[in-house]
C-alpha cells in the first residue's frame, strides 16, 4: 500500500532538486526510455530508510562529478507502481530492488547499483561506485 503522499513528497523533492525528472506514468516512462539515445540514470526511489537514506545523498555527491549521465530520470517504487514496473521492464535480466540505480546507454543497462550494493554503506562509497560507472559509460564515445 502506498504511503501518504505527504510523507513521500520530501523524498520526491530531494531527487527533483538534484535535477531528476519524475516519471509517474507508463506513458511518461515509455516516452523517456523507449527510444533512448545517449546515457540516462534511472533512480528507483524508495521510502526505505535502510538504503534509500543513503542512496539519495550518494546521488547528490555523484552528480557533482565531472562526468554525469545526459538524462536523470526517477520512478518511485511502491508509490507510482505502474510506472516503476514499466521502468523495470527496460532493465533486462536485472532483478527489481529498491532503491536502485540503473545506468543505461542507448537503451541498454550498462551498470546497475542494486539495493544490496547500497545497504550499510556510506553515501561516499556508493557515490564512488557511481562516478566510476559514469566515467566508464557516460563519456563521449570513442571513434573506433
Amino acid at each position: 500500500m502506498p504511503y501518504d503522499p505527504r510523507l513521500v513528497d520530501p523524498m520526491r523533492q530531494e531527487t527533483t532538486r538534484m535535477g531528476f525528472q519524475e516519471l509517474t506514468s507508463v506513458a511518461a516512462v515509455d516516452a523517456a526510455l523507449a527510444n533512448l539515445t545517449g546515457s540516462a540514470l534511472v533512480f528507483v526511489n524508495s521510502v526505505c530508510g535502510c538504503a534509500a537514506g543513503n542512496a539519495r545523498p550518494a546521488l547528490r555527491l555523484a552528480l557533482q562529478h565531472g562526468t554525469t549521465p545526459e538524462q536523470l530520470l526517477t520512478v518511485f517504487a511502491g508509490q507510482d507502481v505502474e510506472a516503476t514496473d514499466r521502468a523495470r521492464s527496460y532493465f533486462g535480466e536485472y532483478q527489481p530492488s529498491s532503491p536502485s540505480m540503473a545506468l543505461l546507454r542507448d537503451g541498454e543497462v550498462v551498470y546497475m547499483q542494486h539495493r544490496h550494493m547500497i545497504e550499510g554503506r556510506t553515501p561516499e562509497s556508493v557515490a564512488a561506485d557511481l562516478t566510476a560507472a559514469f566515467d566508464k559509460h557516460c563519456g563521449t564515445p570513442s571513434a573506433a
Partner: protein
Amino acid sequence: MSGHVFHHGHDELHGITVVARHVDGTVFVGRFDQEDQGKILLLDVSTQPAAPEGEIATFLARTMKFGVRVDRKHLAIPTTELTSVTPLQEAVAG
C-alpha cells in the same frame, strides 16, 4: 545522511541483504528483517539448493550482479539450523 528515513532502531542487520547458510547445505539470499523467538525472518528470498561450493559461488556472484531472483516473499529459519548469516557484499567479496 538524509533526514528523510524510516525505521530507526532495528537489528543491526535489519534491511541488509544476507546470505544464510542452512545446515543441510541450502543457501538463502534475502533481506534480513528481524530475529525473534529463535528464528530469523528473511524477506524477498532466493534459494540455492545444496551444491558444490563452486556452484554456490556462481549463484552468489550472479545474485550480486543481477540481483535477488525472488522465489518466496517470506522465510523464517530457526537459528539452530543455520551455520552462518553474512551480508551478501561480504560473502561475495570474501
